[in-house]
């Protein structure tokens, strides 16, 4: 048969070129081996970082709350029940000011003298916020949906009496509501109703608790979560409710400002033509001042810090480029003939680059104190190394003919550099510097967080409080905007520079 000799011929061929076949076999085995190694590494790292147990122990429900607080805010009415059954309501340091009387909290009050028990005196039902027709909970950036204090509590008819709350109804956004009396809380969430009896400082659910209510131990606080609408905590002597609204509260004016709570149209009218609120300055100046020094958003401070970050990146990169420029000529082997000088400068670049920006930032923070000077110096040192390396590589790769031409005309060494080299490399240098300027605007944020000043530090402080997530979102937005603008600017400038090279 003919197949047998063909097979032997093939074997002979394989014998003769065994190297080639072996390489192919090795290459075929490489991918599965690589995948196995990868798998083993991932499992080992899972154990090394104990990822499983950390993920299991993590507080995931709060992650949702934190994420929601990026674009929303909570209003926190808190009812306290005194041992004699008197209920009081407070709003803490919320975004609505001291006494907001929102329309989603309805109170029934009674006037009583402290000696006698409640309910004897003339009970009077008030719907305190009957004024605003608007019931929207989506008041983005403006607290104008929140009603201002209407008519105050009824004037006390005689001395030695106080107004106490006998019943309260809290309607959260969505279908959840709470009906609160000193002895019982009825919580309605959709179709389900839970009643909780309050007695002797203990909270006892009547019947069994549904999935959205949780009580760790009998008698202790019951946590009711209503999803994005908010949540409530009911314990024997205290009911705190968190009602969540979409938007950034008090973004322009804080509760101290005379413009607080006014609709935009009225603020506009006051600024343009109203009587002076503060006789010493115009309303426009007052409004601007109130915006800048807004206690919750600290606009002026945020803008200053952002400018610091921009300045850090700008000045740091520019000075680095200015220093790297002459040094690169020393480092380039094609331009400076001295081997010692070349190597010395190159090792200096390597050192500056490898001692990371972060280490320089820590050093200079220690030396200059926290602030943009430290960040600027850190960027300057690191980028002198990086830009010097890039510049000297560009110089070593230039086209030599231009230089020879200038030299053959009998030009002085300086003129040779000026007319033979600079026109070739200057656009490249400028484009690289612009690129680093742009990328340093991002880096400046991170080194800012370790103390080198700028928005990074402010951002980090806001994050660490765990409660200012809306401020974090604001700063991140500003940062993204700045990065986007610089990105486009540097891209546009660079394409013009490179375009000139091609032309």
């Amino acid at each position: 048969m003919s197949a047998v000799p063909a097979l032997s011929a093939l074997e002979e061929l394989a014998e003769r070129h065994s190297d080639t076949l072996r390489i192919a076999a090795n290459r075929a085995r490489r991918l599965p081996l690589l995948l196995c190694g990868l798998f083993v590494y991932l499992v080992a790292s899972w154990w090394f970082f104990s990822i499983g147990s950390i993920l299991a122990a993590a507080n995931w429900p709060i992650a949702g709350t934190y994420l929601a607080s990026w674009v929303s805010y909570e209003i926190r009415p808190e009812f306290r029940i005194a041992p004699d059954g008197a209920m009081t309501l407070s709003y803490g340091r919320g975004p609505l000011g001291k006494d907001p009387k929102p329309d989603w909290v309805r109170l029934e009050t009674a006037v009583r003298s402290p000696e006698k028990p409640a309910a004897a005196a003339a009970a009077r039902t008030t719907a305190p916020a009957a004024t605003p027709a608007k019931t929207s909970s989506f008041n983005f950036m403006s607290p104008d949906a929140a009603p201002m204090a209407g008519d105050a509590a009824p004037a006390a008819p005689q001395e030695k009496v106080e107004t106490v709350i006998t019943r309260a109804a809290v309607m959260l956004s969505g279908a959840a509501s709470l009906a609160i009396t000193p002895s019982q809380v009825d919580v309605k969430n959709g179709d389900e109703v839970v009643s909780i009896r309050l007695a002797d400082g203990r909270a006892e659910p009547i019947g069994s608790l549904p999935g959205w209510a949780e009580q760790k131990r009998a008698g202790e606080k019951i946590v009711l979560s209503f999803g994005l609408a908010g949540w409530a905590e009911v314990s024997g002597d205290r009911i705190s409710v968190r009602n969540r609204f979409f938007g950034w509260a008090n973004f322009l004016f804080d509760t101290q400002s005379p413009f607080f709570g006014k609709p935009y149209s009225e603020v506009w009218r006051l600024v343009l033509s109203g009587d002076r609120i503060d006789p010493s300055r115009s309303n426009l100046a007052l409004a601007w001042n109130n915006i800048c020094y807004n206690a919750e958003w600290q606009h002026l401070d945020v803008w200053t810090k952002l400018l610091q970050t921009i300045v850090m990146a700008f000045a740091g990169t520019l000075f680095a480029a200015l220093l790297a420029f002459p040094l690169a000529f020393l480092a380039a082997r094609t331009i400076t003939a001295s081997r010692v000088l070349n190597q010395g400068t190159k090792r200096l670049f390597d050192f500056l680059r490898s001692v990371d920006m972060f280490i320089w930032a820590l050093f200079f923070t220690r030396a200059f104190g926290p602030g943009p000077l430290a960040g600027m110096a850190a960027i300057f040192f690191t980028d002198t190394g990086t830009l010097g390396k890039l510049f000297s590589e560009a110089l070593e790769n230039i086209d030599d003919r231009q230089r020879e031409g200038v030299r053959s005309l009998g030009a002085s060494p300086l003129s040779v550099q000026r007319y033979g080299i600079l026109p070739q490399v200057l656009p490249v240098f400028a484009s690289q510097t612009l690129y680093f300027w742009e990328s340093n605007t991002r880096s400046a944020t991170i080194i800012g967080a370790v103390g080198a000043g700028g928005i990074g530090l402010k951002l980090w402080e806001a994050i660490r409080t765990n409660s200012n997530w809306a401020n974090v979102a604001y700063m991140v937005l500003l940062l993204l905007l700045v990065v986007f603008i610089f990105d486009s600017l540097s891209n546009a400038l660079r394409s013009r520079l490179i375009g000139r090279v091609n032309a």
Partner: protein
Amino acid sequence: MPVNLPDPVREPPGRPHDVERHWNEMTRRKRLYSVLGLVLLVACVIASLRFANETNAGKFFERLPYFFDFFRDLVPRDGWEIARALFDLPSPYDNGSFEYNYPEGRHYVWSSFYIPEYMFKMIETLNIALFSTVIAALAALCLSFLAARNMMPNPWIRNGVRRFLEILRAFPEVVVAGFFLAILSLGPLPAIAAVSLHTVGALGKLFYEVIENADMKADEGLRATGARWIERVRFGVLPQILPNLMSYVLLRLEINVRASTIIGAVGGGGIGELLRLSISQNHEAKTLAIVFLLLVTIIGVDQLSASLRRRLADERAFHPA
């Protein structure tokens, strides 16, 4: 051929210097722009420096004399202190304070064999960088095929994935780290999350650009045999782009070693935090030991990655895709 365009060479003979005049005019204008640009730049620099100096905690010229004090304070009591701090050996100056308590940080592996504290933390930081790079590269690989024009014809998915990658890339790492720090408590995981999310964005973009530049003839052949999408990816595109992708991953690893050090300093554990603490507490031997360790590691990783990338490039040159 009739020429309608104004040609300076064919100007009437009465105006011989038009070319030169025009040239001079252009040069003057160019020079004016250059000077104006330079003046603007200098004004910007001066304004920035003044602003930076005013808003800094210490003023530049006030702090400058003390600046060198700081470097003088960094000199340890004797040169061997650095080695002792590095290897957790007992110090002769030990007075019970945190400055000289080197042996306390030892990580015993078995009986009397230990890994010195800083080396352990350095390994942890390196592993954070490596682990984040690996998982981010895997995720970026999956996403990049969905973002490449030649592999994903549906523009909605493609542009959606691209926007997603852009957001990941631009989002400040500090914020991601801080957010996960709030949920997961202290440890390496916030740093891993921050570094790897950013890396997915950065690598994803590089990857899909490589995929878009791949030679599609192999893919065409596979499509002609009726291969499924995943087979086209595996046998048509992946073999030719893999060396390129590996080289980007190695470059990213270099960057991530630095990034994980920084993120460590803001609360993610690892060597960065130790360096921040020892600098702020003026522990000169510890500081120098960590800086030395970091320097060696960073240079080592850079060299290793450079040599691997060279080998990849050689391989590619030898077996053209």
